[in-house]
């Protein structure tokens, strides 16, 4: 069974799907991804599906599942590069992506994660200040 590689770029994990995913592959990817997020502590996951021509409901659901998994590790998920035909299929199937954010391409996806990450770090900074004040 082919496995989808998960690449780490900074604090972001990049999953680029270049093969025809079978159901087994989807499950393996979900497992691998959960493993990697927990070990790396990434704050964002990007799923690049610009090479995916055909989707079924199972793969459609995978995005929502991955997003939910990432959410548990406090990471955001962005699906990038969805082809028009794929988007139409998903709409016709009546699938929603839940918490998943979408972007036209990888570049824009990274930008979204950067903004979200900044917000998150911003909020960390506030609590840090607060803690510092308390210490003082």
């Amino acid at each position, binding site marked *: 069974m082919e496995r989808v590689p998960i690449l780490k770029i900074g604090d972001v994990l990049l999953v680029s799907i270049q093969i025809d995913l079978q159901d087994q592959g989807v499950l393996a990817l979900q497992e691998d991804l959960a493993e990697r997020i927990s070990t790396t502590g990434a704050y964002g996951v990007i799923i690049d599906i610009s090479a995916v021509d055909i989707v079924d409901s199972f793969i459609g659901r995978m995005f929502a599942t991955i997003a939910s998994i990432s959410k548990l590790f406090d990471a955001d998920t962005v*699906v*990038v590069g*969805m*082809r*028009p035909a*794929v*988007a*139409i299929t*998903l*709409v*016709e199937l009546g699938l*929603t*992506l839940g918490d998943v*954010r*979408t*972007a*036209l*391409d990888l570049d*824009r*996806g990274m930008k979204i994660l950067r903004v979200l990450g900044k917000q998150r770090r911003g909020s960390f900074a506030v609590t840090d200040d607060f803690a510092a004040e308390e210490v003082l």
Partner: protein
Amino acid sequence: MAAESEGIHRLTDLLRANADTLIDRWTALASSAFRGRLTTNELERDSRELFASLLPVAESDGRDLTSGQFSELKSMLAELSRGRARQGFTPSETASSVFALKQAVQELTEAEEDPALFRQVMTFSGLLDALGLWTFESYSRAREEIIKEQSEQLLELTTPVVKIWEGVLAVPLVGTLDSARTQVVMEKLLEALVETGSEHAIIDITGVLAVDTQVAQHLLKTVVAARLMGAECTVSGIRPQIAQTIVALGIEFGDITTKASLADALRHALRSEGIDVVRRRDGRTS
């Protein structure tokens, strides 16, 4: 039998011998129907070609046009009536150019008192009737082709995707929306989003005459599909009556942004891109 076959040959011989007079007369009769919209030269050329391929089959009664001997004549007539249909002639004008030969032949054989020849002329006239009907059939087929082509062209024409700003696309929809058209709009818009890398799309429905639940459903699908691809879609130009219909039908647009006019939608798109349009301080245009 011998007498009859002699008679048949007589008609063919007669036609062949008088070919030029017949064609002239035929052309004259046919051109009176076209009232100068087709030059006599063109008409004569057509008549001559038709006559040449008609001669070998002049003996048959035309009851079975599907047989192989008619194929050349049929394709010639089909070509002719297709041309006439495109030039805007009426079906009866087109068919009467075939029927005109009947009168020409009748005038030629009137003086003859041979009953065998008369029978053959009747049969020949039956053949011409069948050919006239075939002309009519090809004419209407050609018309249907034209209508089909035009509706396809219309479909292409009425769904342009235009870029109105860097990263902002607009689709001005005009006319009635049905499933086929909405499908085309959806596909073209999504393709254009990818091609241009635009993050905003505006679907302007100012020119849409009516919105029912199905049309609304299609619009929603388009917006959701665009969102799946990472682009934001705004619907603009909902007219007052349509707004009332939408509310009366209980159609929910959910969290889809709707704006009154294309200008508002553009401003909204620009703002979310971080662009503000402001008047210059001196207030002058240049």
